[in-house]
């Protein structure tokens, strides 16, 4: 998720939110890179969903992306899960 494709992800998420979803799960299993723009996108979506009484769940962070989430402290602030199943079955906080 860099400057080029982050707007696409944001657009997709906002479209789902506009359709009425208030909880989104992002499977980041195939994500190999995340820039500051990508991180800001995650934070913005999480904030929007929280404002609607829902939440953003992110799962299967790998390698550098996992490290970046850990280092920036976003792993502690956003809801991050090991597997897609645990993200899907998690209870809302």
């Amino acid at each position, binding site marked *: 998720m860099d400057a080029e494709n982050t707007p696409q992800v944001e657009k997709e998420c906002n479209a789902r939110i506009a359709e009425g979803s208030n909880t989104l799960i992002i499977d980041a299993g195939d994500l190999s*890179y*995340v*820039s*500051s*723009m990508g*991180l*800001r996108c995650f*934070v*913005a979506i*999480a*904030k929007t969903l*929280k404002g609607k009484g829902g939440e953003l769940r992110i799962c299967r962070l790998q390698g*550098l992306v996992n*490290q*970046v989430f850990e*280092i*920036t*402290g*976003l792993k*502690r*602030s956003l809801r991050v899960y090991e597997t897609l199943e645990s993200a899907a079955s998690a209870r809302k906080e």
Partner: protein
Amino acid sequence: MRIDELVRIVFALFPVLLFLTGLRVLDSYKLVPMRMVLAALTAGALAAGLCYEINTFFFQHFPQYSEQYPRFGAPAVEETVKSVYWIFLIATSEVAFMVDSAICGFAIGAGFALLENIVYLHALESASATVWIIRGFGTAVMHGGAAAIGAFVSVYLAESRQWRGVRQFGPGLLTAMLVHASFNQGLLSPVSSAVVVMTVLPVIFVVVFYISEQSLGRWMSGKLDQDIDLLAMIASGEFKTTPQGAYLMSLNDAFPPEVRGDMLTLLHLTTELSARAKGDLMLREAGMEVPADPELENSFKELKYLQKSIGPTGMLAVRPLLKQTPRDSWEIHHLSR
């Protein structure tokens, strides 16, 4: 307490505190903790006490200048004494952004004005409500505004021109003195002066806050990407192909392998802490909660150990690899609070 007394107190003390509260509300990042605001208010009150003594001394010993002193001497003395604390905050990287420096500067001026007005509340018991409106909305807010302008001009010069020392702080202090001296010239009626202060200062602050937050956002994104790329390089073993890696390799003959290893670890750790601080900023920008991180304490212990192990000479050698701007130093301060 009589109603007229209450009115005097409200007009004398509340406007400047309301203005200060407004500035804190306007700040999206909320990086100035309440204890820092209280410390700045206290520093301002102490500055007012000191200036009272200096001004009294001057009036007693140089009565022939009693007309000129309030217009030129007092602004120079008062802004210099007030500047001691905002210069300290900026020089020690306690504040590194224009918004924060404006809030702290204003709080120092507010503390100054509060003590001054408390003294005047006793001294001018028979003064009308108009006097207190002018003192509360005009003089008090001017005191805050002048110090705030001095502080954010200094941060701006450090950011945009990389000026340090006298070049960084001199123009800010001079600007604060000019603002204060202009107010004291009596070119406008006291009521008009108060109106000008209450209309011009908010506009200045809104513009400064906007510019500062834009600049902070750009810096945060740009530097975070650099941090992420550097961490990726270190993790993948490609670090030695980077300019920083080449520099570290060039130290091969000067330092033993274990010290060079510590240098690389230090670079990795400071980059991690830098990215961590930007993660905090990102969450604050979005108005989200930043949970406490107990692991940070260990990181700072490790940082101290590495600095000690590398030694003063090694630290000098590794300095080009480490970030040294005021904002970079601020990141470490921010996390260690």
